[in-house]
């Protein structure tokens, strides 16, 4: 299997913790690389050996099916040893702190940790305590960088560009890490971002992130090239974010009537998992001509291969030797 040589020194970061702070160059590099992997994944079976001998640990503190599987597949296609750890069933239940878990895993010398955690900032905290590269697979309501990258790749392949596009992100922006990562990425790549939601599901001063805010679907969708729907977390209904699913769907669910306001060739996206009949009508979600929802999943594997590759090439060839007197991790305090 052939692949183009790759200059790892181009990508400047040790971890991929978020989109915020990445340059258009960084993003383009990842997207170009991911695009090659998408083509490779389509044309040939079998494994690459790029990450042969490397260990990737999927450390998921929150349940996930698609993201974890996508990372697992990406690691295996690159020839890495991939281990899945679902922490909700493991040591966290026994009272181990996040940092202790990180320390334990660090001692096993993984090369890449792919981490999902329910608390914003937890992945960054963990990354400061380990020697390996860390990829954020979603932290709280903060960031989900690989989702934004795969969305960007989907858009670029369908529309040929990102620059200048009008993108609407609709739904539960307040709790969405997908929305935040996408806002950063789309802005830095030159798209114009709109947010559409009831005010209860919009974070304070959302317009300060470089977005235009709408409370009405038809007004917000007007002339949009891309319509990104977010999952409505119905468990939030009890906390007075919205009265009922029926009312939410009536005003903010994407159906063909509301979609008429967007451009005729507008692309419909959703990070999944979808609630049909809640934030999106089934017929819209399944519209082969307009919905890119399944394509997004496919792009996910290519994007994660690119991320794993780029970060592991930045790793030192030799693993650092653990030195108890010079731990980069724990403040030893007076015992040091």
């Amino acid at each position, binding site marked *: 299997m052939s692949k183009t040589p790759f200059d790892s020194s181009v990508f400047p970061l040790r971890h991929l913790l978020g989109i915020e702070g990445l340059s258009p160059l960084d993003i383009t590099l990842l997207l170009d690389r991911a695009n090659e992997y998408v083509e490779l994944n389509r044309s040939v079976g079998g494994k690459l050996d790029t990450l042969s001998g490397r260990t990737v640990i999927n450390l998921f503190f929150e349940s996930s099916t698609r993201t974890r599987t996508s990372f697992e597949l990406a690691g295996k296609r690159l020839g890495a040893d991939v281990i899945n750890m679902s922490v909700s069933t493991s040591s966290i239940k026994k009272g181990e702190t996040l940092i202790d878990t990180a320390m334990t895993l660090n001692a096993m010398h993984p090369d890449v940790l792919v981490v999902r955690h329910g608390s914003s900032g937890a992945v960054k905290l963990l990354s400061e305590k380990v020697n390996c590269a860390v990829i954020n697979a979603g932290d709280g309501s903060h960031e989900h960088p690989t989702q934004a990258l795969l969305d960007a790749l989907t858009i670029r392949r369908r529309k040929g560009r990102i620059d200048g596009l009008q993108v609407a992100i609709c739904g539960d922006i307040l709790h969405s890490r997908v929305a935040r990562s996408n806002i950063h990425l789309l802005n830095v790549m030159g798209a114009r971002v709109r947010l559409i939601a009831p005010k*209860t599901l919009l974070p304070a001063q959302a317009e300060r992130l470089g977005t235009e805010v709408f*409370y009405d679907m038809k007004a917000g969708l007007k002339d949009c090239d891309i319509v990104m729907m977010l999952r409505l977390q119905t468990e939030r209904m009890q906390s007075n*974010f919205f*009265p009922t699913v029926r*009312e939410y769907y009536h*005003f903010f669910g994407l159906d063909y009537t509301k979609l008429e306001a967007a451009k005729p060739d507008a692309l419909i996206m959703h990070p999944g998992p979808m609630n049909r009949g809640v934030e999106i009508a089934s017929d819209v979600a399944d519209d082969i001509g307009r919905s890119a929802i399944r394509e997004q999943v496919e792009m996910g594997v290519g994007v994660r291969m690119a991320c794993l590759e780029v970060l592991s090439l930045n790793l030192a060839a030799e693993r650092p030797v653990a030195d108890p007197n010079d731990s980069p991790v724990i403040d030893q305090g007076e015992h040091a």
Partner: protein
Amino acid sequence: MIYNPTPPEKTHAENRVAYVNARLLDPATGLDAMGGVLTQGERIVEAGAGLFTKDIPEDASIIDCRGQCLCPGLVDIRIQISGKDFANVGASAVAGGVTTAVCLPNTTPVIDDRSVVEFVARAARKAGLVKIYPYGAITKGLAGEELAEMGMLAESGAVAFTDGTSAVSNARTMAQALLYASTFGLMLVQHPEEPTLAHEGVMNSGETATRLGLSGLPKEAELIIIERDLRLAQMTGGRLHIAHVSTAESLDLIRAAKDRGLTVTCDTAPPYFALNETAVGDYRTFAKLSPPLRSEADREAIVEGLKDGTIDAIASDHTPKSEDTKRLPFADAAYGGVGMETLLPITLELVHNGHMGLLEALGLITQHPAELLGLPAGRLKAGAAADFIVFDPNRGWKVSDTELNSKAKNTPFDGRPVQGRVLKTVIDGRLVFDLEG
């Protein structure tokens, strides 16, 4: 005499009626002059000074107003309907000159669902007479916990949202409600009373309550909710209206908020500028209201608030209660009084006492409340619905159970000599009340 116009006469659409020889009063335009109004069917065709001084259209029937005042029908933005008693509400309304009324959502069933909005609209239509618009509930079942479907309720016709006679007391719930409502540009109307502080209070806290041995309800219960909600309105950008303010300090708070540019409005009810806590006197349960009648200083401040425009409107707070719920020891008696038939004369006391002009006073019960809720009412205008009243601002009468058309007689003004009486009420071009008819 009250005329129930249903079923409508088929020929009504063509009917032309000329109301001649009237002193026209239209607060919206500042019109105060002799003139007339011509209606055709349900609409006003023409209204103006000097109209019909010479020629009256031949096909029009003529009603001579004999120099009396003619103004837009009263717009009462706070009434309660007990049970399913829509017909009785209408009789009381038109006798008081109220042509448009907005009812609280604490009907049976509660207006927290689209189907109930439609039920109320249908019941009110069937009863005829006054035009009734509903408030929708802020929270399901008025329980103060889960948001009601305000967006869809508004689409079905709810004009604004309130939990009626109870405050949304949880700060987080109120903040979310303001935020959510502002998504659709909807207004929330708050009953300002912090329930845990109000506790078991039954009248204003103070000397009178102490002498009577009744548990007091401190004014701070009102102030706390107003202060809190002004902050929440500022924080959320939500549209807030404070119902029936009753204390001097409430007005200080609202005045200050308006001065710093917050879009907030409030109303009061006639008892709060015409009565004080001494009206409770010898345990008169008709004077047991919510909020309670306050001190004389508070009453004077409410008058000032009406004069300087801090208070945007007057609403009757019409709350019919059966004798069974009022003939009880004071602490056990129900809150509230009927008010639609005393709305005009008590408001006119502000004029007779020299606090404000006639147009200004009428504006508080016609144009202003209509504009607050965006109701198509409160103006004498060509093309508008022919909803207006003819009244004598000086005619004296005494409020008593025999004079009231309301089935419930629980008025806090019982026995009070008042000045100003509705002579005729016209709704959709039909004469529905004629005192001398």
